[in-house]
């Protein structure tokens, strides 16, 4: 039986449900340091689809590729605890301020270095931007076909992946030849939980930078157990055109950012007392709003 090499594109995102005042910098970009960071929800759905393929085709490997600051290595470890084999952290100051196109360019350059993959799986979109652009843009930059909004990978047969897609008003079953890029919808199966054995195995996995900043007493471990080393790629490790990176490489610019300040309009405040509700319904009927 064939084994596949799968790359899962994942993003560590600020938990946008809990945002403080210092969340934005003056230049309109996000101040990630001030926010709690989580594994982007739909990227977890993507990881689950990858792990299911691994379950069905023994020997398949699942690699998490993430672009972000040093702390983004956290989600690589999280992925390994759930069944991913390894990960790559793509990190460099040169990527700062990238819009979706510059991000897709950097990720596609890293994927060109990885080279012999069969399937790239990403979440449909990240909760900090909600754009759903990076998956299709990576596919275009690699010249690969894309299948978006995947809810279930049904089978892989004769070099083709069969998938169910969730559309605005229905479902579609499609087939796509390998290699290909798919993005997974939030309606797909939830990701499996951490596995206790894998947690023990990978909890000390670190990038070089993390290792340098830690007071690790067991440095020899990292020689004896190569899987504990998370590769860290900067612009020096991948072939890139610097003009295409970061703010310079981004066609879209943020002109202004407005923090949302609520302008209260004078509302009539009432209670749940019978007389209040009675009066309200009378008012609405009299104004022909209802009835």
């Amino acid at each position: 039986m064939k084994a596949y090499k799968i790359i899962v594109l994942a993003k560590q995102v600020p938990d946008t449900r809990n945002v403080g005042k210092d969340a934005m910098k003056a230049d309109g970009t996000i101040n990630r340091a001030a926010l709690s960071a989580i594994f982007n929800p739909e990227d977890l759905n993507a990881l689950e689809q990858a792990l299911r393929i691994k379950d069905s085709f023994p020997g398949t490997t699942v690699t998490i590729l993430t672009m972000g600051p040093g702390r983004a290595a956290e989600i690589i470890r999280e992925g390994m605890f759930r069944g991913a084999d390894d990960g790559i952290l793509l990190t460099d100051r040169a990527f700062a301020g990238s819009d979706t196109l510059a991000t897709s360019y950097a990720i596609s350059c890293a994927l060109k270095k990885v080279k012999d993959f069969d399937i790239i799986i990403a979440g449909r979109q990240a909760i900090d931007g909600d754009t759903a652009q990076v998956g299709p843009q990576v596919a275009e930059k690699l010249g690969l076909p894309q299948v978006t909004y995947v809810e279930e990978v049904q089978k892989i047969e004769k070099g083709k992946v069969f998938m169910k897609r969730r559309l605005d008003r229905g479902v579609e079953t499609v087939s796509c030849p390998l290699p290909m890029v798919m993005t997974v919808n939030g309606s797909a199966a939830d990701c499996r939980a951490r596995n206790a054995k894998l947690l023990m195995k990978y909890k000390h996995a670190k990038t070089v930078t993390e290792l340098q900043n830690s007071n690790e007493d067991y440095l020899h471990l990292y020689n004896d157990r190569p899987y504990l080393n998370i590769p860290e790629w900067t612009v020096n490790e991948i072939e890139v055109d610097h003009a295409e990176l970061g703010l310079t490489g981004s066609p879209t610019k943020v002109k202004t950012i407005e923090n949302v300040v609520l302008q209260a309009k004078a509302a009539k405040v009432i209670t749940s007392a019978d007389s209040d509700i009675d009066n309200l319904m009378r008012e609405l009927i009299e104004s022909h709003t209802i009835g």
Partner: protein
Amino acid sequence: MNSIFVYCEIDEGQVSEVSQELMTKGRSLANELKCQLEAIVIGHKLDGIEKQIFPYGVDMVYVADDKRLYPYNTLPHTSIIVKLFEEQKPQIALMGASSVGRDLGPRVSSALHSGLTADCTSLVIGDHFDKKQDKNYENLLYQIRPAFGGNIIATIINPDCRPQMATVREGVMKKEIFDPKYKGKLVKLDIANYVSDSDFVVEIIERHMEKSKINMKAAPIVVAGGYGMGSKENFQLLYDLAEVLGGEVGASRAAVDAGYAEHERQIGQTGLTVRPKLYIACGISGQIQHRAGMEESAQIIAINTDPEAPINSVADYVINGDVGVILPKMIKYYKQNTK
């Protein structure tokens, strides 16, 4: 002056709602910029489709008609648009933020290296002065959208790359016929010049589309529930009230995510935009993404246990209290007063 393009989605021979809304917006932008409004339609059996399009004030319609082009398939649609845009060099391109537009838009923008802003809630023409380059840009498209979980409103511009691309959700822009007798030009594209066999590697095996059963946009009254409803069972209270008042039930994203209501009922930036006569928000805190989908309602009642809930800022009536107590009372007193 380079034109504005709208990508027209086709649904069983009809130009989709969102495309009609975008042509309406495109016409007003074209008037302001004094340029042409153009449309591209890709599909099959499109004879006469231009009759649905010209009334929106479209000056030129490009039609790509081939049986392999319907239903929508990413690669061939991308190839046609990319080549057409390279030839015509539009300054602005608009697409629906639908499952089609959000699949197609990023692929096209990557191929053309042009910027794309997703899910815009407003599109405005304006200038921009770049201090670093000491350069003034005139008549850019301001692409305005909530971002970052709705905590900010961002105005995005594409100063140097063309076309300036944006997607907009259905129901966000208003749809209006410009002139029922408006006559534009029709151009039929020779498909062989635009697509190759390698564009057809993704095969659609099966397709089940459902007509939306829920007609939220036409409902005069919307009773919407949020995460604060607490459970799917409690949502029944909303159906009860909606039935009595003759309305529809809507939901916030949090409620849909929690499984309290189906996705088709979702109101807000990533769902539907509604403008009913009366909007009753029950257990909805009212983050900006939600308010973006309902704040133009004529009257808003907010029912919430939190007196500081953001929804209260757009409400005409605020009822502080428990929805489980208040909704049955509303039904009771409505019935009493209409007898």
